[in-house]
């Protein structure tokens, strides 16, 4: 028991630091660099990593409510895999709120054609429940400001 516990601890120890600090894109650059910007609601969330994974991985699907920029199929849900889970925060990585809650997503396309979130935590703005107030790195901005920036 003791030996196996120590072994597990040693394996866990190989995980890399979970803190970080990103270079923040100025707001106009964030809007400009994003190939797509959508307002979406979180549909499903599921931890998809093995139980003994160093860092858990969560798969989240979102339903698009409104497309602010880009060519996407609104009826097709988007799916993202992100490090961390409820109970295991991985800093600077996008962290989706609970199912039913809304987010603004700034997206770019991967080489494989799938969408990914632009610049980590900066590219996912949670939206306050019951209002359109954007939170996270969008705290000082609004959906209206995104639309104004796009109109320029």
């Amino acid at each position: 028991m003791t030996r196996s516990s120590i072994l597990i601890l040693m394996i866990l120890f190989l995980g890399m630091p979970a803190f970080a600090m990103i270079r923040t894109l100025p707001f106009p650059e964030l809007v400009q660099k994003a190939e797509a910007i959508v307002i979406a609601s979180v549909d499903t969330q599921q931890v998809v990593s093995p139980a003994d994974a160093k860092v858990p991985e969560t798969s989240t699907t979102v339903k698009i409510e409104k497309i602010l920029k880009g060519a996407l199929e609104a009826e097709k849900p988007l799916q993202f895999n992100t490090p961390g889970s409820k109970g295991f925060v991985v800093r600077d990585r996008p962290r989706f709120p609970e199912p039913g809650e809304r987010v603004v997503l700034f997206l770019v396309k991967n080489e494989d054609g799938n969408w990914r979130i632009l610049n980590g935590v900066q590219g996912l703005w949670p939206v306050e429940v019951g209002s359109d107030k954007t939170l996270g790195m969008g705290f000082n901005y609004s959906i209206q400001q995104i639309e104004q920036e796009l109109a320029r």
Partner: protein
Amino acid sequence: MNKLRKLSVILLLASSLFMTGCDATQILDVITKVADGVQQAMPAIRDVVNTFSNAFGNGNNTNNTNNTADNNTAAVNNNNNQQDNVETGDKSQANVVTIDPNTEEVRDTAGQNATGTQTKSTELVEEIIVGAQIAVPYTQVGSESTLPEATAIKNKYGITILDGKTWRDKWNSAIAGKWTSEQLARFAAVMEKLPRSFRDCTDGFSMQKTLLNNDGGEPSGLGGDPIMISSDAIDSEGPAYMDHLVVHEMTHQFQANNPDALRQWAAKFWPNDRLTRSSISDYGNTDPGEDMAECVAEYFVNPEKMRQHDPERYEFIRQNIWK
């Protein structure tokens, strides 16, 4: 408690073994001193007992009365923390920080903390504190710099300076980098200006050329022990950016060693995990840990700007962190 009592008896018996040939007064004197010592050490002993109980999963933690899935998750994090403490040996002050997520003080419960201040901690804040305590063996990510400035920093401030290795895991990767003499001179100047209690929370700094997230992001720094910073980011943003980056990441180490300070910060500026007014930067608006790190970095680099932006946050830093 039974364990503590047993431990006290063992200590008393052990001490009596060394006292053969002494007179009764001497024996009583020693027993009194040992008893006093055990009483004073009770909180620390209790932490040690809980630490080992949790680490080896024997379920003897008397605080653990709630076996919900949520608490099980937190217990995994708690074990991670203990494992970090074991592996880092004597080089990290985080070794002495233990978190029992089941205690009333830290689990969504208002109460008196160690400093006697009312705090209300949330799951997010506790996750941030546990995350701050993540450590890796230094040899896994770097090798000690041989520059004389690095030796001087280690001797004067106890901070190990590492030239980063190339590494990759599932979510992040780094390209090897080296400190320059100029960077180390600037780093030493920053260390000189920091309060000792803040500086002493950090044990190691590794310089990588590049840090990458697997989703395309390029972090300037990765916190933890050792702290890793990116020379690409410093080159791109300018040398003054290094000061901000260094103090920002060191604040996370301060949080790891002073979890109550973060709990108080969060209770004041993020009640129920909801930001009441903007941090000093957009990045600081992501969570209470980054909010504090950004504000402390600004307090160091541009204190007047910090004071004007938010006198309350400024005052909190002055009174609770910059001492």
